[in-house]
């Protein structure tokens, strides 16, 4: 929002913060001045003497002040399944999780495959007035995997990329044309990399699935479409993003593709770095995900991919489901985890375990995803939007799904020990979330 020129400026000073900006590598004690929703100035000297009159002051108490998180993969269930989540409840969950920008998948009912759908998401987000909500357009009409949608018109309406959501673009010719056509508008195709004919199972293929008598999905189901798609990227030059990598083989395929200079990126979700198939344990449907949780070898390879930068982003893959969708025999239960509120704390686990520096980790949660989608967010820069998260990187606690703001509480992380807590979330200079202080 721009304020009429000439009027008094809304100014807020964030004092005594540990300013962390992964894009510039900044990690310094200092203050940040926000004017009319934009970052006007920041640094160690700012306000070192005093703060002028008329400036609202927020004391950061030495805690970490970083760009607000950019979550590039969430399902908000609106329109169509508002009993699981709405854009409003999802935006509140995002605020509680320190997420200031998120991108919704188009797999709603109706599917977001036309301009009106893209506009609907934008309008609802404006009404809700919390964090920024973007959407992908469906890559094919009705997610049916055949006819391309109007990439050009949808991009003009605001779609930030094209994907068939939780369905793979299975047909090679359709993927080829999608990658090729995407070049016209310099947009990106995001793939759910799972070969449908191999993905009929319900959990990771292997000894545990065998013991439980559940049908398995082999890791090959992920690497086969990734490798095929990389060949099509070579053919077309289109930009390609592989979502939620879960296997060592797929991470290695992307690593090699990047080394060859192909325009490819990828992300993973906290559960693929944190959990293995063992979490399925005694048929726990909350640990049923798509793709499935994998072996310890795969988990370590995905973690290594995050650390060495092969994996550009960590996304929550927020998949809210009501109890009725999960309290079912394992095979019948819906896959997915409500992840918006645990994205930061679970990711910080990598830092606390000494795998990765704090700045490097934050880049996977801020400028990394923002840059690959061209959102212009995820950095602390003069003149940029004041989208920030204030967090305590050390606070110990446990995940309590019952306390989630999200309408859905489906998380396998019940009681999972964490270190890290979101204190405040700021969007365009407005504080949209403040943690309840511990009594």
């Amino acid at each position: 929002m721009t304020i009429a020129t000439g009027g008094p400026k809304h100014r807020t000073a964030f004092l005594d913060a540990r300013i962390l900006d992964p894009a510039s590598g900044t990690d310094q004690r200092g203050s940040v001045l926000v004017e009319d929703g934009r970052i006007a100035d920041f640094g160690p000297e700012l306000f070192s003497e005093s703060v002028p009159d008329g400036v609202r002051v927020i004391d950061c108490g030495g805690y970490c002040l970083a760009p607000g998180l950019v979550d590039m993969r969430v399902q908000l269930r609106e329109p169509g399944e508002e009993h699981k989540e709405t854009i409003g409840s999802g935006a509140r969950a995002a605020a509680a999780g320190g997420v200031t920008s998120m991108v919704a998948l188009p797999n709603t009912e109706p599917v977001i495959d036309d301009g009106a759908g893209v506009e609907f998401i934008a309008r609802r987000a404006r009404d809700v007035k919390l964090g920024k909500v973007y959407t992908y357009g469906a890559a094919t009409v009705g997610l049916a995997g055949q006819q391309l949608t109007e990439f050009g018109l949808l991009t003009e309406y605001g779609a930030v990329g094209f994907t068939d959501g939780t369905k793979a673009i299975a047909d090679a010719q359709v993927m080829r044309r999608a990658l090729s056509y995407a070049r016209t508008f310099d947009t990106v195709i995001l793939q759910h990399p799972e070969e449908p004919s191999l993905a009929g199972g319900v959990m990771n293929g292997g000894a545990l699935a065998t013991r439980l008598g559940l049908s398995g999905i082999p890791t090959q189901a992920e690497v086969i479409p990734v490798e095929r798609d990389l060949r099509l990227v070579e053919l077309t030059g289109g930009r390609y993003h592989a979502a939620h990598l879960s296997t060592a083989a797929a991470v290695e395929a992307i690593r090699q593709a990047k080394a060859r200079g192909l325009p490819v990126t990828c992300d993973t979700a906290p559960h693929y770095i944190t959990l293995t198939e063992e979490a399925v344990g005694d048929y726990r449907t909350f640990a049923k995900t798509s793709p499935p949780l994998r072996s310890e070898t795969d988990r370590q390879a995905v973690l290594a991919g995050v650390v060495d930068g092969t994996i550009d982003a960590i996304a929550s893959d927020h998949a809210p489901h009501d109890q009725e969708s999960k309290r079912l025999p394992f095979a019948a239960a819906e896959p997915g985890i409500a992840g918006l509120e645990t994205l930061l704390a679970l990711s910080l686990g990598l830092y606390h375990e000494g795998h990765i520096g704090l700045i490097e980790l934050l880049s996977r949660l801020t400028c990394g995803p923002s840059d690959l989608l061209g959102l212009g967010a995820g950095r602390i820069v003069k003149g940029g939007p004041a989208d920030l998260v204030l967090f305590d990187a050390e606070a110990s606690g446990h995940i309590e799904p019952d306390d989630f703001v999200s309408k859905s509480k489906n998380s396998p992380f019940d009681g999972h020990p964490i270190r890290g807590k979101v204190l405040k979330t700021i969007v365009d200079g407005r504080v949209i979330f403040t943690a309840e202080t511990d009594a």
Partner: protein
Amino acid sequence: MTIAKASSETGFRHRHLLGIEGLSAGEITYLLDLAERYVELNRKAGKTGDLLAGLTVINLFFESSTRTRTSFELAAKRLGANVVNMQIAWSSIKKGETLLDTAMTLNAMHPDVLVVRHPDSGAVNLLSQKVNGSVINGGDGSHEHPTQALLDALTIRRRRGRLDGLLVAICGDIAHSRVARSNIHLLTTMGATVRVIAPPTLLPSRIEDLGVEAFFDMRKGLADCDIVMMLRLQSERMQGTYVPSTREYFRFFGLDQEKLRAAKPDALIMHPGPMNRGVEIDSELADDIHRSVIREQVEMGVAVRMACLEALTTQKAAGGPDR
């Protein structure tokens, strides 16, 4: 690429006209100069000559066509030839041998010239190997349509006085267009600079190897162009596989006043016809007599085809080499 100063001294010494690829600048210029004379003749009242008197021309069309067939028919009749039109529904007969059977059958009737259009690339070439007369390619699949490129060149040359040094943009379904291929060969041979503009789904792979520059953005591609050639987009390409919809295609690749502003102020608009108004071209522009030379292209078509018929029949009498 070095372009010899175009000269018509070389004449035209081929038995068939199967494509533009391989023709020299001199040969192209010879045909255009020949056609130029027929333009004037065609505008007069008594326009029948007797150059082809006693010769037989068969228009053999395996693909429906009204304009091209009529143009060839008129051209042959104005030169005094006997003309037979054969329209064969290719879909109703089997491929392979049948095409050659047809060729042998017709050959036995000793036609002097066969004008052949066929939906398969290379089919006209195949047929030409089995007949004794001359063959003119009236369009084969997505391969070549040489007389269209010649009539386009004649139209441009009459308006601009030259071909070399011009900047020409060919826009639309390059992948499936024989008109685009013939024009690319002709224009680059004559020293023009050629750009192709299309969504990447409608650009064939390695099109740059034909000596053109490819663009996905109309405004960038049209910048400073002297000539804007629009191609017809077949409706079956607009159903989500190559292009998602007609409205999206028109929005980003249809020629309208706003996009045309990027080209030179006096840029000419061309289209091989028939036009899809509101798909590849705005109706207002198509009818703009100051910019659009679409009707002139049709007029040049008859003159160019008369020139081709003359070149093939007269040099054959002189015993020219096979091509």
